[in-house]
């Protein structure tokens, strides 16, 4: 008996979004990164194509983190008080993009001024020629002052700025449009809300094709199934032709994985759980590997081992 052909033809495709700008494009980046463009379910090469493999951004904070566990300190401890040096380290470790978090602008984390934040961005742009993803401190009132300055400082570099929400989108959308950056649209685990945020942003005149979606992230063991199902539903909607869900997706895997007890608790748990230097990175890698199946285009990671595993996994799955 012949095996029936179960290939699925999808009417929609995921948008492509290019981050970064080379000299020719008005920026100073050594290269750009393009994500999205899929025409089928992730890694089912017989269904559709994946023209751009999922990209990896490495985390860089603008101040030394106090709560990063030992395995991460070993990699970044010597550079993490200097964002430029940290960014160079991330490039050496093979990052496609730098994920810069301006945590020190938080009123309780140093309350640095918009001008200082802009200086940090300039320093990182000078230190490495990778495209940038830039986040504020997640305090809307402060981000509304910081992000326009940051967008201005990075003018022409075609960065990816985060994140617009249902309540706070106008300032960031206006800034991104004025200085020609891409935007992250955040709607936690809710496809309807995601579409609504996208419409609100597009009502400001910002093109839907310049958006990257952030449906939030959950790590292995902490509600990942739920996020996974939302990811998958969103991707299926995109493939079915829903233009409001056709944007590529960014996931903050490193941050979530390294918050988990399993990635943090020291070697006192080694007897049952294995040594921390393997465990933390493994937790991050497994979270990333799982979520990739739901449909993710840009992963923010932290540990070099996780980067290696995820890269080879993507390579193998795309080759299969």
């Amino acid at each position, binding site marked *: 008996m012949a095996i029936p052909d179960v290939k699925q033809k999808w009417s929609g495709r995921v948008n492509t979004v290019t981050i970064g700008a080379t000299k020719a494009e008005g920026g100073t980046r050594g290269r750009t990164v393009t994500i999205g463009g899929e025409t089928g379910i992730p890694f089912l090469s017989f269904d559709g194509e994946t023209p751009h493999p999922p990209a990896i951004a490495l985390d860089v904070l603008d101040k030394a983190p106090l709560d990063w566990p030992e395995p991460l300190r070993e990699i970044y401890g010597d550079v993490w008080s200097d964002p430029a040096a940290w960014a160079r380290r991330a490039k050496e470790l093979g990052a496609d993009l730098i994920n810069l978090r301006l945590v020190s602008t938080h009123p309780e984390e140093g309350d640095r001024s918009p001008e200082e934040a802009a200086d940090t961005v300039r320093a990182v742009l000078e230190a490495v020629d990778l495209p940038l993803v830039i986040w504020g401190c997640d305090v809307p009132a402060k981000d509304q002052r910081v992000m326009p300055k940051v967008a201005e400082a990075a003018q022409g570099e075609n960065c990816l700025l985060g994140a617009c929400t249902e309540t706070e989108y*106008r300032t960031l959308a*206006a800034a991104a449009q004025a*200085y020609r950056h891409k935007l992250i649209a955040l709607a936690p685990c809710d496809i*309807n809300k995601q*579409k609504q945020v996208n419409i*609100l942003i597009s*009502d400001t005149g910002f093109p839907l094709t310049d958006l990257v979606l952030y449906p939030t992230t959950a790590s292995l063991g902490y509600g990942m199934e739920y996020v996974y199902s939302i990811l998958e539903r969103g991707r299926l909607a995109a493939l079915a032709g829903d233009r409001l869900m056709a944007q590529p997706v960014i996931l903050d895997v490193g941050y979530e994985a390294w918050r988990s007890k399993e990635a943090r608790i020291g070697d006192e748990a080694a007897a049952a759980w294995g040594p921390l230097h393997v465990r933390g990175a493994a937790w991050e890698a497994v979270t990333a590997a799982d979520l990739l199946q739901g449909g993710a285009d840009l992963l923010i990671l932290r540990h070099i081992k996780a980067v290696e595993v995820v890269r080879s996994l993507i390579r193998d799955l795309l080759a299969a």
Partner: protein
Amino acid sequence: MSSFRIHFLPDDQEISINAGQTLLEAARRANVYVGAICGGEGTCGKCRLIVREGEVEGESTEFLTREEIRRGYVLACQVVPRSDLVVEVPPESRLSGYVGIGGEDSERFRDFTLRETAAPAPHLDPVVKKVFLTLVEPTLDDPTADQERLLGALARDRQTPLQMGLKVSRQLPCVLRKVVRERGRVQWSWNGRVTATVGVRGPVLEVLSVEPGNTSGRNFGLALDIGTTTVVAHLVDLVRGTTREAAAKYNSQLTFGADVIGRINHARQPHGGEDLQRAIVKDIDTLIQDLEQRSQIGRGEIQCIVAAGNTAMLHFLLGLEPDLIRLSPFTPAAACPPPVRAAEIGIRVNPRAILYTLPMIGSFVGGDVTAGIVASGMYLADEVSLLIDLGTNGEIVLGNRDFLVACAASAGPAFEGGSVACGMRAACGAIDTVRISPNGDRVSVSTIDGGRAVGICGTGMIDALAQLFLAGLVDRSGRFQVDRCPSRFRPSSEDDRPEFILVPPAEAANPRGVVITQADVENLIRTKGAIYAAAACLVNSVGLSFADIQHLYIAGAFGNKLDVANCVTIGLLPDLPRDRVHFIGNSSVAGAKLAMLNEQTMAEMYRIRERITYEELMVNPRYMDDFLSACFLPHTDLSQFPSVPDPASGAACPDVAAAKSMASDHAACKRGGAS
């Protein structure tokens, strides 16, 4: 126990209450209406009073500003007197007794002509009819008893079995004959001219009463719509099939809770059910009194009452156990209660008059919906119709002559003024029309009576939201865009968010002015989302889409004031060609009248009840998803609303320069704490 005298202004009512009783209880006992949406739990902030003389004590409340407290404002349900008091009921707390008798409003409630519906003009065959007979005098050859003589004559041209009570049999000999009593002697002389009043009681016809002579030219009935908010009564001439008078008033049960659930909760308290029944019976009595005065028809001539209403209201009226309505699996005590004597529940009309309650479909789809189905005529048509009853509990029916499905959407009281900061019912001083200029700086409103604005009613809220949206003063998620027109906004006293000034205090009959808060907008978006999503689910459940709907009937007390375009703009109603949308007004009372005027129509309602399918949305997995996508202006799926224009875009950035200036403006605006 000491007691205090409370004098209420401006009604000049005085009552004495025991120490420890609240001013709200005093107002209830004095029959002074004070809005209390939450039923006296201190959670709605609507029962505002001003203490003019005397002292009170009570809990502090977040619902009053410092300035208002200084001026003597209190919440009636939260304070008890410490001395004799003079208190004033301010306009925003008053419930005017009658709903705008006079002008357009009375038309709204009186109108019986259902111009736009497919309902056939009823062939007159009322459920209670008067039959004039001339009976042949008994003879030795034919000594048939009086009762059997009458029943035989009545049975001649009908199949329905007849019955007669002992009371009527006792009267009958004296009605059929002239009786002369002289010096202990009784003389009987045959008259034989008799008018029998017969009424449908289930499968039989009952002879309700007999009168000498021919009174068949005068026969009246009362059609009632017992709404959660409003009670409407029509006095119907059963001989001519016309409406002689109409009256409406607020449902006094409002003081026990604004919605069905609040009142069911009250009914669970000791004597709570009696409170509710007494309140509605008293309302009906007040309406009858009003009808008597204006029509010159005595209440004794009312031979039947047909009551439509939601399931809970009819349970309260009949004193049926209402508690199970709100508990899963939502089982009413009775769906088709038998006809009873009106006198049995205390309604003073003809003592033999029958009270019919229209058959109910489910716990949340009541006899008012059965009435609406008949009034719209949707059950007779080949085309598919959708009936939406916009009330506190939004009922929706879909179907045609072959099928009917119904569901209920718990919309909440926003359309009737509940849980809206300046909300009120459609009464004097209520804003019902709002227009806002495209750039948002010019706002014009009109009130139902043309007077100064006290608050805003449901149509006003729908108008306001649509106009705010089109002017770009709210975004699609309903958030105020303060920077579009900063002068129209001010910080809210209820939370730290901005509120939109619809009517400034100086121009309103209310010291706060009339405002729309961010919470009001969110509330209305949830309300409209619930109704639209329920309609969408129902239509989808039978494999249809809105495009298949040939007639959209909108029922409710909104009348013609409701602006279809604005309803579509906010996504309350589906975006259908306007000629498919028909306002049928109060279809509940209209259906009650149709049932009263034709016993076949009444019987048809029972058949409709039998064949309708009730769709429980709470177990429909699609509903929540549909609801969330409907909580947006007009909808997350904009393609469902092609006729709705994009809002005036203050947010759009046509070029980079404008965008740059906007970015800095926004930053400046946010720094100033404007939003």
